[in-house]
């Protein structure tokens, strides 16, 4: 039986495109299948940033820093301007309780080699004069930046094609054929079958459904987020600015912020990110709903929270809102792993940091598939950490 492809990548978002890119670089004949258009799912509904500000100190911070640095390499290697701008970010601290957590993070992350700075009240207001006066401190990350994930996906796509890979948009994975030895033999799609002995599942929120077709139980669920787009040509901040509470919400520290019960239940907080298109994005929310329709009540709550941090926003207009679903895992860390099926790999569940993690995850997957030593130990990201969840 002749193979059609050395490896099939399922998913045409950032994870899939990055995986296919690095695998093609290794000389593998890759075919990428995607149920819609390239960059059609969460990739196009993200805020497109790569900051090391919201990981827990330790392993994931090392991972994030290495991931953020991959964009420099891509910006150099790809024939595509994906609007990669490194301007760092600032986290605004509301009260003493947050300051305590922030101080601990500052110490721990500094030891992890992160360029981080604790700013006092005066400095914060000098740095971002539009901030509301009662912000007591700030945490500055000078590394990291923002990018346009859609342009990067298309850029990776062109590079994949140049290396002899194949992209098949509007092609849906319908099942897998596993041989007697427990190895991948075939990927079934609604557009013809593909003979291959390796598969990378990088379908984000849709990964769990697809993995189930191969008998793998993936603990990935949808975590919705909403964003507001501010009218262009207004100056609000110099760079990405968000409430320190984001860390509390994302990593579920349990500390209570002074927000309404509705805001608490929907994980609503503040971030603002100026984009290269002269718009600014305002977020954020985090609640377990699988829908990309904007929720009016959530949008209103985000607006309210935004005014609390930047009163100047009151006079500005929202031209658009959009929502996406993050692929969430029980411990908020990604799954970059092999599985009990030979040749079946997973790069998914990157929670709220999928754009940042994608090139690095793709690189790690390519190293794992080729049996090379990975740039960083990836056993902490193995699917087997959720052993209780896995039923054959």
């Amino acid at each position, binding site marked *: 039986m002749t193979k059609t492809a050395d490896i099939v990548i399922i998913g045409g978002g950032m994870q899939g495109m990055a995986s296919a890119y690095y695998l093609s670089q290794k000389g593998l004949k890759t075919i990428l299948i995607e149920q819609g*258009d390239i960059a059609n799912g969460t990739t196009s509904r993200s805020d497109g940033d790569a900051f090391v500000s919201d990981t827990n100190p330790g392993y994931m911070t090392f991972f994030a820093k290495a991931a953020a640095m991959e964009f420099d390499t891509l910006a150099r290697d790809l024939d595509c301007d994906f609007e990669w701008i490194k301007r760092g970010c600032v986290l605004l601290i509301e009260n003493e309780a947050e300051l305590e957590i922030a101080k601990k993070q500052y110490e721990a992350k500094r030891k992890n080699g992160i360029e981080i700075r604790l700013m006092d009240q005066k400095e914060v207001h000098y740095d971002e004069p539009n901030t509301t006066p009662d912000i007591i401190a700030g945490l500055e990350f000078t590394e990291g930046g923002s990018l346009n994930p859609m342009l990067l996906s*298309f850029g990776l796509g062109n590079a994949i094609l140049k290396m002899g890979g194949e992209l098949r948009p509007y092609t849906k994975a319908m099942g897998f054929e596993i041989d007697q030895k427990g190895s991948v033999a075939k990927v079934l799609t609604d557009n013809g079958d593909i003979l291959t002995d390796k598969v990378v599942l990088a379908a984000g929120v849709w990964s769990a459904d697809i993995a189930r077709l191969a008998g793998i139980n993936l603990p990935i669920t949808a975590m919705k987020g909403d964003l507001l787009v501010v009218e262009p040509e207004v100056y609000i901040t110099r760079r990405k600015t968000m409430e320190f509470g984001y860390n509390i919400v994302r990593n579920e520290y349990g500390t209570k912020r002074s927000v309404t019960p509705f805001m608490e239940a929907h994980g609503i907080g503040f971030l603002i990110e100026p984009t290269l298109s002269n718009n600014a994005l305002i977020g954020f929310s985090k609640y377990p709903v699988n829908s990309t329709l904007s929720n009016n009540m959530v949008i209103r709550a985000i607006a309210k*929270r*935004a005014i609390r941090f930047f009163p100047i926003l*009151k*006079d500005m*207009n929202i031209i*658009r809102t959009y929502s996406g679903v993050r692929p969430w895992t029980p411990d908020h860390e990604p799954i970059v792993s092999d599985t009990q099926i030979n040749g079946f790999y997973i790069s998914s569940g990157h929670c709220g940091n999928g754009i940042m993690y994608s090139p690095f995850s793709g690189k790690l997957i390519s190293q794992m598939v080729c049996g090379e030593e990975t740039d960083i130990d990836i056993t902490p990201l193995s699917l087997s950490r959720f052993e209780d969840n896995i039923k054959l």
Partner: protein
Amino acid sequence: MNTILQNAYPSIEEIAGCNCFPSDERFLRGSVAVIECIQEIPCNPCEAACKHGAIEIGNSITNRPVLKEDLCTGCGACVSKCPGLAIFIVNREYNEKEAAVTFPHEYLPLPKKGQEVDAVNRTGNIVCKGIVIQVNNSANNDCTTVITLAIPKEYANEVRGMKRLDREDAKALHECICNKTGNTDDTIVCRCEEVTSQQIKDAILDGAVSLTGIKRRTRAGMGLCQGRTCQKIISRMLCGMTGLTEDKIDPDTARPPVKPVSIAVLGGDEND
């Protein structure tokens, strides 16, 4: 009640009620301007357009125009100058059986002289056939084409336009327009984000088969107007290049709010 506020077009009663309709005696003398401007809009280009002093607005700009029918020669200079497209030239005495109605027509493609077209009334419904006797595209009209139709006399008070022609030849037409303007590909299609025709074409060649696909590649439709201006043009370009028919092209994802809303309004106290 049939009013312009309800229907977006004036009723015969409303037009008659504004004392601007030429008298039957004046109609007997041939072409005359019929000004169907019934609202007190702050607007007066018609007054300056008439070289014969036949249209008067007066000191208050919200006055309705008054036609001095004896001064009107029916020359039609005012037709293209009315921003509301509310002025017509009617000649009930065009010949024994037919009247001639002149109206502004801002749709492409344009009809040809001698062509038979569907004549429509103020509501846009077809009332009879008409023969195009003039297509006036003079520089003075400033890109508003003025068309004159010959129609059966009995419809002279009713016919106020013609049915828009099918765009079966839209591609050829597009090329014709492009040849006229020269630089096709620098033509800006999405004005908010300044996306050119060439960028849209490149996105389609790159594999975009939907409005969303083009948007993600170029930002077309992501600006202040949220694609209201360019979506139609882009879907036509998509049809032309991919061979898809327009009904196969899904509209872009609608994203609230419908128009820009201030953050203060959104962040009000309602949701506590």
